[in-house]
C-alpha cells in the first residue's frame, strides 16, 4: 500500500489516476489529477477532474488532500460513479 501511495504521489499532477486498496476500515481510494471538490459529506464526495466528474458514495467517508493535486478517500465506499463532463 505504501508503494502505491508513493507511485501515485510521484505521477504527474494533471494525469487522472484512481487506485483503491481494501483495508480494515473499508477501502482507501487514491485519486490524482483532481481539480476541485464539488461536494463533501460523510455519505458522498464529488470530485472534479479534467473533463469528468467522479461520485463516491458510501458511509463514514474521510478525505486527505496531498500537495500534488491528489486525494485519498477512505471509509466504507459503496459506489463509485464516473460522469462525463464537468457538470
Amino acid at each position: 500500500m505504501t508503494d502505491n501511495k508513493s507511485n501515485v504521489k510521484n505521477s504527474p499532477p494533471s494525469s487522472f489516476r484512481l487506485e483503491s486498496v481494501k483495508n480494515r476500515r473499508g477501502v482507501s481510494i487514491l485519486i490524482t489529477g483532481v481539480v476541485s471538490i464539488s461536494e463533501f459529506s460523510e455519505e458522498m464526495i464529488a470530485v472534479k477532474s479534467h473533463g469528468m466528474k467522479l461520485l463516491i458514495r458510501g458511509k463514514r467517508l474521510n478525505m486527505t488532500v496531498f500537495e500534488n493535486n491528489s486525494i485519498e478517500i477512505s471509509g466504507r465506499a459503496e459506489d463509485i460513479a464516473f460522469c462525463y463532463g464537468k457538470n
Partner: protein
Amino acid sequence: MVRIDFLIFGYRKITLSPEDLSEVTSNLLRAKIPSSITNDGKITVRERDIPRVIALGITREENISKPLGLLGAIKQIHHKRAVVSALVLSMLLVIVSSLLVWDIRIEGNESIPSVSIEEELTKYGIKKGMFVAKIDESRAEVEILEENSEISWININKRGGVIYVKLAESEATKEEKVEKKGYSNVIATYDCVIEEITVKRGTAQVKKGDVVKKGDLLISGIVSSGESIDFCYAEGIVKGRVREQIVAESDRNYEKISEKSEKSAYLDIYFFNFRINIFKIYRKLQNKCDIIEEIKTFSFPNGKKLPLLLVFGKEKTYEKKTVELSDEELVRMTSELLSAKTAARLANSDLLKLKTEGEFTESGYKMTSSVVFLCSVGEDSVFYVQ
C-alpha cells in the same frame, strides 16, 4: 486519523460548516496545502501551513484550534515552569544515577563463588554505589590475575551503571573439582608406540616401547594387593607416538562467494536499556544474506561514554560464482587447507616428523602430509562390577 508527520511537526484543526467543506477543500487542493478532512466537519492542517490558510481567507482565525500534536504540546508547556523544571530535574537525576555503579554481573565462574569475586573486586573500588568514572578496570584486571592463580583470564567492562565481569577459571581448578566416581580402565585411543606412562591410580598394563592398537588396555582399574582384588577408577598419563596421514584436496572449479549488494535494513536507538526502532524494512530475500550491525557510540572528550547507541542494520547479499583457479592459486589454496587441518590435528600434540607431498589430479590438486607426533593416547573406559 491524523498523519504521523502532522503529529510530529504539529497541526491545527479548522472547524467549518458542512456546506463550506467542499469549497474550502477545493481551495486547499488548488493551493497545494496538504490536509485531512474528517467526517465531523473538521479539517486538519499542518502547523506550518496555517499562515497560508489565513492568507487564502478560507476561514477566520477564531475557527482555528490551538496547536496540537508534539509541537503543540511543546508550545503549551513552554510557559509552565513546573513542568520544565521537573523535566530538567529528572534529566539531571538520570545523568547522576548513570554515574554510579548499580549492579555487578559476573559470568564464567563455576567453582569460585560470586561473593568471593565481588570481595576481590571491592579491593579495587569496584562495588555498588561507587562512581563509575573512578574505576580503573585495566589495573584491576592485571592485579586480580596476578594475585589469583585460580583465574586464568578476566575482563571487566563498564556499561552505564552496570559492571560486567567475565572470567575463565584455570584448568587445574576445574579438574580438581571433577569428581570421578565408579570404576574405569584407561584404553588406547590410537594405534601407537608407547613413549611415556605415569600411573596415578590402577595397574599399568603396558610399558615404554610397546606397540598398542586402538582400544587396547593401558591402565587397568583392577588392583590386586596380596590375595584380595580391588577395583578403582584408573588414572594416569599415557603418551604415545602416533603416525597419521592428513589429506587436503581442492577442486579446480572453485565456487567463489562474493558480495552482491548492501542495503539498509533497520535503525535502532538505544538509550540506556530502552530500544527505539526508527525504521525497519521488510523485503523478500532470495539470496543468502548476512545482517551486519554497525554500532555507533558517543562519548565525551574525556572518554566517558554516553548511554546512547545507534545500531544500523544492513543486509548484505552474496552471490556464488564458479571460477577456474590457476595452478598457482590451486596449490596455494590446497596448502592453506592442509596447514589448517594439520594445525587442528596437532593442537594438543608435539610434532616429531612431517613429510608433505603434492600432486595434480584430474579435478584439481591433492596434498598429503605424513605426520608423526607425540600425544596423550589414554581414554577412560568405565566398567561396572556386580
